[in-house]
């Protein structure tokens, strides 16, 4: 069974590597959104530094959301999803491999890009470990929760906006805890509490959402 997991993960990784342009899009979006904020609120370093925790997190959240719209679309259109549903392996495990592969290539890339953009917004170096750690724990939750919405809307022609409507309210705890951790680090307060909460959310999402994603896919395929 774990063999299937590894095989599927490798397949997804190979597929994603073959289309580097699609991988770059969420990253470019992330960078552009961050660049728009100084233009909108003014270039004062103090102000930017004060709002940077929320800003980085909001941009990361939107970038993940954007990348999720097409998560299952290709597999839905070429019929692979149907094969997954009828295969003897548990569907929850298969979707977990799929979502994790997606996270490694989009979420992890966001995590790596974030310190650079944080630096441009005036985040001090001392806050960087917390920024990295909070994004590392938070983005898998975003991917997994978003995959539930993507699974439910995969059969719809214009699922993108609906996906945002369904998923954004569910993202709120991650946004609060992630930006809270960063805010605490910025003020020199301990951020461990926030990070532990994020870690428990990640554990919860990792164990529960695959079943919801699987149920969503079964419904969408059955239509």
């Amino acid at each position: 069974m774990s063999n299937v997991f590894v095989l599927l993960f490798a397949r997804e990784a190979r597929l994603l590597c073959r289309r580097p342009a699609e991988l770059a899009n969420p990253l470019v979006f992330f960078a552009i959104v961050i660049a728009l904020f100084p233009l909108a609120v003014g270039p004062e370093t103090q102000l930017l530094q004060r709002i940077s925790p929320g800003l980085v997190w909001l941009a990361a959240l939107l970038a993940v959301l954007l990348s999720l719209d097409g998560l299952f679309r290709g597999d839905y259109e070429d019929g692979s999803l149907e094969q997954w549903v009828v295969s003897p392996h548990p569907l929850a495990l298969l979707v977990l491999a799929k979502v994790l592969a997606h996270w490694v290539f989009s979420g992890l890339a966001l995590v790596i890009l974030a310190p650079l953009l944080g630096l441009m917004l005036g985040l001090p170096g001392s806050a960087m470990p917390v920024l990295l750690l909070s994004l590392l724990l938070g983005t898998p939750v975003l991917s997994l929760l978003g995959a539930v919405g993507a699974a439910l809307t995969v059969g719809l022609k214009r699922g993108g906006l609906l996906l945002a409507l369904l998923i954004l309210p569910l993202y709120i705890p991650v946004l609060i805890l992630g930006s809270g951790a960063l805010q605490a680090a910025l003020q020199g307060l301990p951020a461990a509490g926030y990070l532990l909460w994020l870690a428990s959310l990640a554990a919860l999402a990792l164990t529960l959402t695959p079943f919801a994603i699987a149920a969503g896919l079964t419904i969408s395929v059955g239509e």
Partner: protein
Amino acid sequence: MNWTWFHKLGSPKWFYEISGRWLPWLGWAALVLISVGLVWGLAFAPEDYQQGNSFRIIYIHVPSAFLAQSVYVMLAVAGLVGLVWKMKLADVALQQAAPIGAWMTCIALLTGAVWGKPTWGSWWVWDARLTSMLILLFLYFGVIALGHAITNRDSAAKACAVLAIVGVVNIPIIKYSVEWWNTLHQPATFKVTEKPAMPVEMWLPLLVMVLGFYCFFAAVLLMRMRLEVLRRESRASWVRSEVRALTEGER
């Protein structure tokens, strides 16, 4: 335990008959309870020593906020029943209850704003309970939008059920994270485990109003469900004879 009543719920015809018998009772109970509660609460309950008369909006605000939250839980329960026992009526209940819940959330938010202006000095503050109510409204919008977007009736119901269940699992997390984020609102007015802090003359009309709102919700839900059942079963012979009887009665 006898489960026949539960299995009977799977039959739209049986539901239509039994709900037709309950509906007048529920409707009258809602009318009587709400009018008694309104007159009692708005005219006879004593004034608050700090807020004066402005506190009286709780007689509408608190019941609608109660309903807003419990209807979402009901959506998830109906979704679970629909997914596990494949009961069509649970699907109908889920989709018909969602708009009522959204309206209740709207009423709670609006009456809260009306109360907040004289008491806090602004229509809206980014306080934890207000914000989580707003998020609840967005969750309702999500369920309604998903139900409308999927054309196949059965998959729309199943998708809404999954979404409602995911939402209910998330609601406590959202609620506590938002509460941690910021809080200004007073704690809940009623707690099952504690004696209310209000005097009896103040909370009794509130209790009447809450019961009245629940009856009102049940009556409106049954009416909507009955209409939807008729629409879904429009090819069945009992529906045809029912509709014929109704239209001839009007003439």
